[in-house]
């Protein structure tokens, strides 16, 4: 079974530029999460989708961040414009709530460097 796929793995951009990250969750997983992880810290939730619906986006900085999951499968997270403080690893995870165990499977992440 293929795991969570993310691309790109690394991205270096200048501040004020836009950037987009893509995630393809495990097949059949209805819940998708985008996290931000700074060095030495735990993952911080940005947004959670149940199928196509964003059910928790309270931590998403909506002035510059946007996300979509149009067909309830893959998802894109965008930052426009990027700021120096956005440098971090962006993790995508998915889970299947049907089993009652909310185990999250993570992708390898995208390491963003804003210069």
């Amino acid at each position, binding site marked *: 079974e293929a795991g969570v796929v993310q691309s790109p793995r690394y991205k270096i951009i200048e501040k004020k530029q836009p950037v987009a990250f893509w995630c393809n969750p495990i097949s059949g997983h209805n819940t998708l999460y985008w996290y931000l992880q700074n060095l*030495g*810290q*735990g*993952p*911080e*939730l940005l947004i959670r989708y149940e199928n196509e619906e964003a*059910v*928790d986006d309270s931590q998403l900085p909506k002035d510059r961040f946007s996300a979509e999951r149009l067909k309830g499968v893959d998802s894109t997270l965008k930052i426009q414009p990027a700021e120096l403080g956005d440098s971090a690893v962006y*993790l995508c*995870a998915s889970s299947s709530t049907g089993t009652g*165990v*909310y*185990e*999250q*499977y*993570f*992708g*390898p*992440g995208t390491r963003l460097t804003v210069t």
Partner: protein
Amino acid sequence: GQQVMQIPQYQHVQEGEDFTTYCNSSTTLSNIQWYKQRPGGHPVFLIQLVKSGEVKKQKRLTFQFGEAKKNSSLHITATQTTDVGTYFCAGLVRSNYQLIWGAGTKLIIKP
């Protein structure tokens, strides 16, 4: 807001010594999950605890969930180099199904 405090931030041990990390939530949790993140890697699910007072074991790892469902611990007996990494707890809040992550405890094996 809801928080999960995890201590210590780092633990240096000699190979063969034990390791313990503790999590404490400001609110009662539906369940608590534990993840391991190797250096340069991504978090990997270890286990989920659901019941009050629950204890689960995975080889040298022992996980406990407190009676009040507000705290949890992970204990590793006789650490090995393969145990190196950061261990995170993450508690599920029933009211909004938010998973609140601890800051992690980094296990470092002394050379």
